[in-house]
C-alpha cells in the first residue's frame, strides 16, 4: 500500500511536470524541448511559468499551448489536432503485446486528463482509448489495477 501511494505521488509530479502528454521538464529550465513543451512547475515546486515562451502554467483544456508570448500579442496555437485531422481509430488486428495495436476499450469513470485534482471531483462519464487518442498527446501510460 505505501509503495503504491508513493507511486501516485510520483505520478502526480510527472503530470504536473508536463506528463500530460508532452515534453516534461524537471529542471526548471523553460527552454522548449521538442514541439510541445508545457512546463507548470519543476520537482522542487518552483514556478517556471514566467519564462519567455511558456504561454500558460495550466493545461485544463486538453490542448497545450506552445511557443506563444501572449504579452507580445501572439495568438495561441495548440498541438491538439481536430477530430478530422486525427482520423479513425487504427484498424486491427489487436493484441496486448508490445509492438501491436491495442484495441479501443470503452470505459466509464472520473475523467481528469488535466490531472489537476483528485479524480473523483471530476465528471463520471464514458471514456475510451479513442478519447485518449483524440487528446492529441503523444503517449499514454495505462496502469492496470485490481480492487482487493
Amino acid at each position, binding site marked *: 500500500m505505501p509503495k503504491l501511494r508513493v507511486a501516485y505521488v510520483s505520478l502526480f509530479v510527472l*503530470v504536473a511536470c508536463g506528463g500530460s502528454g508532452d*515534453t516534461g521538464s524537471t529542471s526548471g529550465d523553460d527552454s522548449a524541448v521538442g514541439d510541445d513543451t508545457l512546463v507548470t512547475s519543476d520537482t522542487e515546486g518552483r514556478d517556471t511559468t514566467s519564462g519567455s515562451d511558456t504561454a500558460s502554467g495550466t493545461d485544463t483544456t486538453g490542448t497545450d499551448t506552445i511557443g506563444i508570448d501572449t504579452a507580445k500579442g501572439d495568438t495561441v496555437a495548440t498541438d491538439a489536432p481536430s477530430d478530422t485531422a486525427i482520423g479513425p481509430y487504427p484498424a486491427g488486428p489487436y493484441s496486448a503485446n508490445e509492438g501491436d495495436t491495442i484495441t479501443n476499450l*470503452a470505459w466509464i469513470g472520473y475523467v481528469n486528463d488535466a490531472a489537476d485534482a*483528485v*479524480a473523483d471531483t471530476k465528471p463520471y462519464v464514458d471514456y475510451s482509448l479513442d478519447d485518449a487518442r483524440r487528446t492529441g498527446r503523444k503517449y499514454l501510460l495505462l496502469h492496470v489495477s*485490481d*480492487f482487493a
Partner: protein
Amino acid sequence: MIVELLESNNIGSSPVTMTQLKAWVDTYKIPVTTVMDPPPDTGLTSYKVLGQRETTYIVDLRTMKIVKRILGDVTGAFTPGLDSGITQIIALLKA
C-alpha cells in the same frame, strides 16, 4: 497522459462497482483519469484483454501501438511496475 484502470475485483472475480472505483480514488488520492469497465459489462472485458494486474502499458497515441508492457509485482510487497512505467514514459517524452 496517464489513465488508471481498475479492471476487476479480486483479480478477475467480479466487475468493479462505482463505489469501489470511488474508494480506490479516495484511498490513493489519484489525480488522473480513473476508469473501469462500464456497467452492465459483466464480462470483465478489460481484464481479459489486458491481463492481470499489476501491469503498465505505454501506448503511442499517434498509432495506438503498445511501446512498452511492464509486468509489475502482484504481491504488493515490492516496487510497482508503475514506477518503471513513469521512468520510461519520461524518457520517451524527452527523446
